[in-house]
């Protein structure tokens, strides 16, 4: 009897954690089994026991921070600004030129080729582009693509301003003319301290940025994290950003003001890095079927330099699928200008200074001529076929696919860049489009090794700084003896003085 009492007392002990006793738990379990009478009761008994415990389980932090407006409500609020229904039915006569292309139609072709963001998101982006076209004086706006960030993603729109509404070119910053901060050395000199040596390093001069409408800044780019949020205009890309961007490898965070910590140092925030990567991706991957764009023959005067503008060939009837699928990619051309190693599409001589400076420094012209002439950098001209692209890691730079094998007659052709994974283009009949959905990083065949910092400066080896040899004990003794003698002499002298 005593055994039974002690056993029952043990079973009735409440647990430290949950406050539950075995007795109580088992009785609930048996009650529930008898209530529910499940099939194969013996097999599910653990699960039921677990379930009973889970039902009772009270989370430790039952007081949770409840944000004033939950995230999903905030997102929904942002999205609701997009939802406006046009009540007016467009009249047939005046067919205004559409600013936003039929993105949903293009997205369907991409979706057939296993590329895209899903129907719903594409529709939201379409509405967001429409909103952008209402806010800004734009001639055309298209969906450029999406870049994944570690915290948020970027949705990017590519746009052109209407003629006459272009933003005024910003005044070029002149870092040279910045008032020099008063040297601390001067103060030191006044105090009688030797001034610290000054750095003789002069950064190479910044190359001029291409203006809106030319080369890498032919179009402007707007970016947002979520369709419905405010669009941010990205600044014009600078050549120095492109050249540094080529040497570093950084993932995006999703915050435009995030710092870019890299070596060589990147002068700017993630906004500039994003713009530079967009310029590189556009230059490398924007392609169209051969014949869609053509050079304007009226303006063409045979000069190569005139060939930086092209127009849509209205007579173009589309390429056949077989031509587009051609393994040597002769059916496709690049229609974005190539970016030269210096970070511009049009080469400028970095040694030539601005015009104003030239007038001031005519005397120095002779010196300049002695300087080595720099070989102008040159890239492939516009509308170069893809077959001239360099191989990527021994494999072709582009992969071609037919979207459907079930019924090829209605299929479209997709080309995907192997150099910029995530860049795709499709074409069928007269339709084509480019899209980028990826991390914003270039394919790298070899492991990435960042540039090493320059070697440390050599230690100063001036002759005026000589190291003395430590005296030996013997020399010290000699010195002390000598000092003692002199002191004695001094004392003697003083004595003599006193005597006087």
């Amino acid at each position, binding site marked *: 009897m005593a055994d039974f009492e002690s056993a029952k007392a043990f079973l009735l002990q409440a647990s430290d954690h949950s406050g539950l006793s075995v007795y109580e738990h088992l009785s609930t379990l048996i009650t529930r089994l008898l209530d529910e009478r499940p099939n194969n009761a013996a097999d599910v008994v653990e699960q039921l026991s677990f379930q009973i415990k889970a039902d009772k389980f009270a989370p430790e932090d039952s007081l949770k921070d409840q944000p004033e407006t939950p995230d999903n409500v905030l997102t929904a609020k942002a999205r609701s600004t997009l939802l406006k229904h046009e009540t007016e039915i467009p009249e047939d006569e005046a067919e205004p030129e559409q600013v936003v292309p039929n993105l949903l139609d293009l997205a369907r072709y991409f979706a057939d080729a296993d590329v895209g963001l899903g129907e719903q998101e594409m529709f939201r982006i379409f509405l967001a582009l429409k909103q952008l076209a209402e806010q800004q004086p734009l001639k055309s706006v298209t969906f450029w693509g999406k870049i994944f960030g570690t915290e948020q993603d970027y949705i990017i729109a590519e746009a052109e301003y209407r003629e006459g509404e272009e933003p005024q070119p910003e005044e070029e910053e002149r870092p040279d003319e910045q008032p020099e901060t008063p040297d601390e050395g001067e103060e030191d000199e006044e105090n009688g301290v030797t001034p610290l040596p000054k750095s003789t390093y002069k950064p190479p001069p910044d190359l001029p940025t291409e203006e809106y409408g030319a080369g890498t800044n032919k179009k402007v780019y707007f970016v947002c994290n979520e369709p419905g949020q405010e669009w941010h205009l990205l600044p014009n890309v600078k050549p120095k950003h492109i050249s540094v961007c080529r040497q570093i490898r950084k993932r995006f965070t999703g915050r435009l003001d995030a710092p870019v910590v890299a070596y060589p140092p990147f002068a700017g925030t993630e906004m500039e890095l994003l713009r530079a990567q967009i310029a590189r991706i556009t230059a490398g991957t924007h392609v169209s079927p051969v014949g869609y764009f053509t050079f304007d023959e009226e303006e063409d005067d045979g000069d190569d330099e005139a060939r930086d503008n092209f127009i849509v060939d209205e007579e173009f009837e589309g390429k056949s699928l077989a031509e587009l699928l051609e393994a040597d990619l002769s059916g496709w051309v690049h229609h974005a200008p190539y970016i030269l190693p210096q970070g511009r599409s049009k080469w400028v001589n970095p040694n030539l200074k601005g015009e104003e400076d030239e007038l001031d420094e005519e005397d120095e012209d002779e010196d300049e001529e002695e300087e080595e002439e720099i070989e102008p950098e040159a890239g492939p001209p516009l509308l170069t076929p893809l077959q001239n692209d360099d191989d990527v890691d021994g494999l072709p730079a582009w992969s071609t696919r037919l979207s*459907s094998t079930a019924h090829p007659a209605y299929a479209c052709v997709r080309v995907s860049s192997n150099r910029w994974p995530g860049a795709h283009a499709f074409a069928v009949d007269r339709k084509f489009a480019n899209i980028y959905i990826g991390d914003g990083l270039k394919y790298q065949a070899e492991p990435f090794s960042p540039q090493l910092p320059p070697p440390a400066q050599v230690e100063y080896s001036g002759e005026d700084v000589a190291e003395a040899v430590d005296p030996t004990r013997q020399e010290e003794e000699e010195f002390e003896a000598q000092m003692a003698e002199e002191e004695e002499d001094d004392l003697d002298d003083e004595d003599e003085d006193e005597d006087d």
Partner: protein
Amino acid sequence: MDVQSLSPALDHLSSSGIVLSTERRVSLDTSLTLLMHAEKLKQVKYWGRIQGVAADYHIAQGSNDDGYATKSFYSMDCIRWAQLPEIHPVLAKSCAKIRGRFTGNPSHEFTVEAIRSEETKGDGSIVVTTTITEEKRLAAAVAAIDKETRIVPRGAYRMTPSDVVERNHGFGGLSHQAAGKIESYMHFRQPITLLSKSPLERARMDQGLDFMDSISDDIPKNCWSIQYQNGSKAVVLRSLIWPGFVFFHTPNSPLFGHAYVGTGQRNNDLIFELP
């Protein structure tokens, strides 16, 4: 992605760039049902696709019970499926050394140079070359991706008293707050880092739920990108070590899944890329 719940899964994965065309979905629906029947499997999942230069490989995985063991299959057209071979750990190591893209031809041969240092003859090392077919490399890549990325929410699986890992039918999804924390997700594999935990750390764990490695112990830190997406309806985790792997979980519901669409190459440069 379960074949039965392909569409809801794609709704959440599509914003990360993982989409399947209607043709592919129709083919998968039919061919995977037939595959499940022919191979006598209890469940078959669409795993993802590995992009080759000339063609893509679609991968499906099947299993008979809830445990870790799976069988992998590949297909070029989503219609005819072939089983991927089992890969010996030594071969898997050689496969990890292969650089470059998949070509898209399963019989393509890669040559790998391995240095055997134990056989000291003259200069001290002998270079041994082995040839590996792309099919074997594919099998090794799928296994390697699974090992580092196959994750489940904490509580979705449990360890029974008889040490059997099984689906927890009482799992109702993580709470909204917990779903946004990296600690709430575990590697669905035999534990590796768990064994090196101190007894003090293990004392705080729930034996029935914390029997797998948490992904918060993965190296380097921040190798997972975690975001609320689709108007905070779903949490999306992207692996930065295997770019292209995307996992989603809808808080307060038992739905979760993952897919991989990428080139099948591990990102060993991640440490330089992290912001």
